[in-house]
């Protein structure tokens, strides 16, 4: 039954990947047909420095409220000529998975994380307030993990065995490639989302071998895709 479930999830993952690739291809085809100004400076009278915006990721909060893990994340980005957006994302990720109903394992971690990178507005008309982004991020977190299991009998010797580590120090560096949109909704308020493809660059998962939830990165080995839904306010 577990194998069937895993197979179903594999099929769903493949379908999901196909849909995301189609979505990205669709966006890219739109961009190649009409976004002649990609990475090209648009000569006009609009000033180079266009202000600062702050944003908040709603998806991470919902994820935390609806599941055992998630993150609270805010970002600050600088608007350079509506074209380049150096961005700093700061967040606090946490996971509290208590006494798994199948394996009995408890996993806890909470730690801040940061991502630094830049978005490029790839729309032809860059000053409309609506944007399609392509971007890169470098992320880092240093966190501690508690994991344990209620004592259980050794399968051969039958001694009671306890399993766990406490305050295990871990860290991770990773990179993200993202594609997102940002639409001006009302006054200084923008709404937008981004889909992110993540790869680990370096990591220390501590003595137990692997970490499960990494703040800012998500669940290891579940999927390399991430998602944010941002509410942004121009300051």
């Amino acid at each position, binding site marked *: 039954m*577990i194998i069937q*479930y*895993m197979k179903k*999830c594999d099929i*769903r*993952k493949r379908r*999901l990947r196909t*849909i995301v690739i189609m*979505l990205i291809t669709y966006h890219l085809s*739109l961009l190649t047909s*009409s976004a002649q100004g990609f990475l090209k400076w648009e000569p006009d009278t609009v000033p180079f420095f266009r202000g600062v915006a702050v944003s908040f990721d709603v*998806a991470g909060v919902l*994820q935390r409220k609806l599941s055992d893990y998630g993150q609270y994340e805010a970002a600050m980005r600088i608007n350079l000529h509506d074209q380049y957006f150096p961005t700093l994302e700061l967040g606090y990720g946490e996971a509290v998975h208590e006494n*798994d109903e*199948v*394996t*009995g*394992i*408890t*996993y806890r971690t909470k730690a801040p994380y940061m991502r630094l990178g830049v978005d490029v507005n790839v*729309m*032809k*008309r860059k000053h*409309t*307030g*609506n944007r*399609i982004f392509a971007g890169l991020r470098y992320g880092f977190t240093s966190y501690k993990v508690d*994991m344990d*299991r209620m004592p*259980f009998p*050794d*399968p*051969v*010797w*039958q*001694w009671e*065995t*306890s*399993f766990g*580590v406490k305050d295990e120090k871990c860290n991770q560096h990773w990179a993200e490639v993202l594609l997102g*949109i940002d*639409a001006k*909704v*009302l*006054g200084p308020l923008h*709404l937008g*989302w981004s*889909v992110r493809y993540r790869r680990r660059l370096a990591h220390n998962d501590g003595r*137990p*071998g*692997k970490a*499960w939830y990494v703040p800012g990165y998500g*669940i*290891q*080995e*579940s*999927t390399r*895709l991430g*998602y944010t*839904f941002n509410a942004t306010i121009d300051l």
Partner: protein
Amino acid sequence: MIINKSFFAKLIKPLPWGGVGVGLFLYACSSIDCPVQNTVATYYSVRDASGEATLNDTLWVLTRRCDGSDTLLLNRFTGQSAFSLPVSYSHPEDTLLFVVADTAGIWTLDTLWLKKDDIPHFESVDCSAHFFHRLTDVRCTHNGIDSVSIVNPTVNYDPNTTHLYIYFRSEK
């Protein structure tokens, strides 16, 4: 509010709300990636002076549980050159009884003590708890066993690593 009539302006306005659906879809499924090969055991290679050897005698390996009862770990092993034995999860030293019956019908009994460090190994909250081990010392009595040595102290999921060489006296 300025309404831009361009194609992108029309396209982009409803997309944030579509993104909610995409987000929910992305979080809808997660997979469980537990290793298929998840047996942690010590692998013994039967050796003689010329290298790997086949055990022509018959071998049983037993151990004693915490309640004092015996349990059989290896039954009637013969005609092969390698075998595996389980390792206790968190006991600092395993005590194993090796019973050998040679081809002439002579029985010998040896006790083998295997010291180790136990390392909790975690894959995911969806995968059951396991222990990896680092073998630190092995010693035994020498009735049927000539000697035992550790050749690779790291015990994990890898089934292709030989951890101990064992030399039996009855091997010619």
